[in-house]
């Protein structure tokens, strides 16, 4: 496995000067960081030249403190049994990158979700604007500066009793006129 990993790293380094590798993982994993402009070409290369035909995952991580969004592509080669992480960083205020759904069709779905949840704009992405949310008016909700608890507190009704951990059984039993046996009362806080 080690030779295969070395081989992959060498080929990538030879072709993509800006690829910074990381290879200290115990499992079958190789990691590259590249500039966002390189993403389509490196993915094309991985898929067409090196047999990484399966796109396993695309994820986005919000590094709020560093003002950056990190997009991670995880690809898998059934031949070499190696997974390769390709990551890039985007400016958090203007996260724009190239669309890669012509390389893998399923990337389309991931990109739609990222666009909605993180506000990452993919140039040339053809898909309806809304994906999971409907009529959403707030900021992209998966960014770390969006406080979901506060939003929920503000928007929705909350049943009182949650904060003092009151037993709802009591409320319901009272409404239905049921007797709560004594032994049961002992357990309700």
């Amino acid at each position, binding site marked *: 496995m080690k030779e295969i990993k070395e081989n992959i790293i060498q080929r990538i380094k030879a072709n993509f000067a800006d690829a910074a590798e990381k290879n200290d993982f*115990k*499992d*079958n*994993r190789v990691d590259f960081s590249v500039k966002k402009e390189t993403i389509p070409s490196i993915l094309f290369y991985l898929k067409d030249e090196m047999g990484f*035909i*399966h*796109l*396993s*995952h695309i*994820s*986005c*991580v*919000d590094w709020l403190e560093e003002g950056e969004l990190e997009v*991670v592509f*995880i690809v*898998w080669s*059934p031949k070499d*049994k190696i*997974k390769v*992480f390709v990551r890039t960083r985007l400016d958090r205020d203007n996260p724009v990158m190239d669309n890669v759904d012509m390389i*893998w*069709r*399923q990337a*389309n*779905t*991931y990109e739609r979700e990222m666009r909605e949840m993180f506000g990452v704009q993919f140039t040339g992405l053809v898909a*309806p604007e*809304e*994906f*999971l*949310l*409907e009529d959403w008016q707030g900021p992209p*909700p*998966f960014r*770390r500066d*969006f406080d*979901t*608890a506060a939003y929920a507190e503000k928007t929705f009704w909350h049943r009182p009793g949650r904060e003092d951990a009151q037993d709802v059984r009591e409320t319901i039993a009272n409404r239905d006129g049921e007797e709560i046996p004594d032994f049961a009362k002992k357990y309700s806080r």
Partner: protein
Amino acid sequence: MREKATTLYIGPQHPGITGNMMVKVQVEGDTIVKARTEVGYLHRAFEKLQERRNWLQSFTLLCRFCVPEPDPVEESYARAVELLEGREVPERAKYIRVLMLELARIGSYMLWYGGQNGSLGLYTMGQWSVGDRNYILDLFEELTGGRVYHMYIWPGGVRRDLPEGFAEKVLRTMDYLEKRLKDYDDLMFDNTIFQKRTQGVGIISKEKAVEWGVVGPVLRGSGIKSDIRIDDPYEVYDKLDFIVPTHEGGDIWSRALVRRQEIRQSIRIIRQVIEQMPSGEYYNRIPNPHKWALPKGDAYARTEATRGEVGMYIVSDGGVHPRRIHFRGAAYVHGITLLEDLLIGENVADISAIMNSLGTCPPEIER
């Protein structure tokens, strides 16, 4: 100006839909000319919520990712955390995990039996298989305390050891299921009408399967041998003897056959697991969860579920809360865009059957 083609809303409130999602199809006659899926009816923002919980608390949310079969998700998460932290897992725990996963696989396929046949109007099959599935849920209940949500496979091993006599019970259940599977075959696979309805419908060719990144039984139903248990073995799958069934054809029928054979393989695996299971520790204890911080870094672990590859990508910034947990649902790729593509040219009558054969599970798409 109105369009000529008729709009049909298949879902969200529709008996033929697999869960809470919507396929808006436009039909001419009863042939679909355009299809658009809409998801998000089940979006609860798990991953956002998990960022507010600590590493163990976020675990309770995990099993809600995909209700028919929550264990592979737990497994992925547990392994991702272990990978990131470098935590060792006892050998016995690995076997128990495999047992758990395979039981879950059978249970999920039993539910699929119901869905697939219900979509074609063979309700008896659903009644039988979903009824028999309760025996598997009973095993889960005895082992974990929960029928549906187990929260059993967790970082460092499993939550508790097998109870007394559990192995025998499992074997007994497996014997019963094997007997029942024959009945299922008689009712379903030997049925000419079932064959007529499923053969040649919803075809995913090999090239298309690769192009769209299809995984799991759907991919194997298109004739491509691909299974993470073999390709990227985890736990003790490399020590077990089983085969990965594939079928050429790529239609509903092939996918059904693949699933059918996988149940048999799962039963085989379970028998081997019980035979080979070593004694010893089952849990490598984690520290106080409230102070349990993972090292900075990320990890990705994936597991073969009944719908294909489910993966868990976790990112830690070195704190007690996850920086990001991102779940890769198996149906994420074929449940949305591929379905849109696949439905074109098909009959209205087959929408539900095709969806069921893809194993689309909306909650894991929307999370």
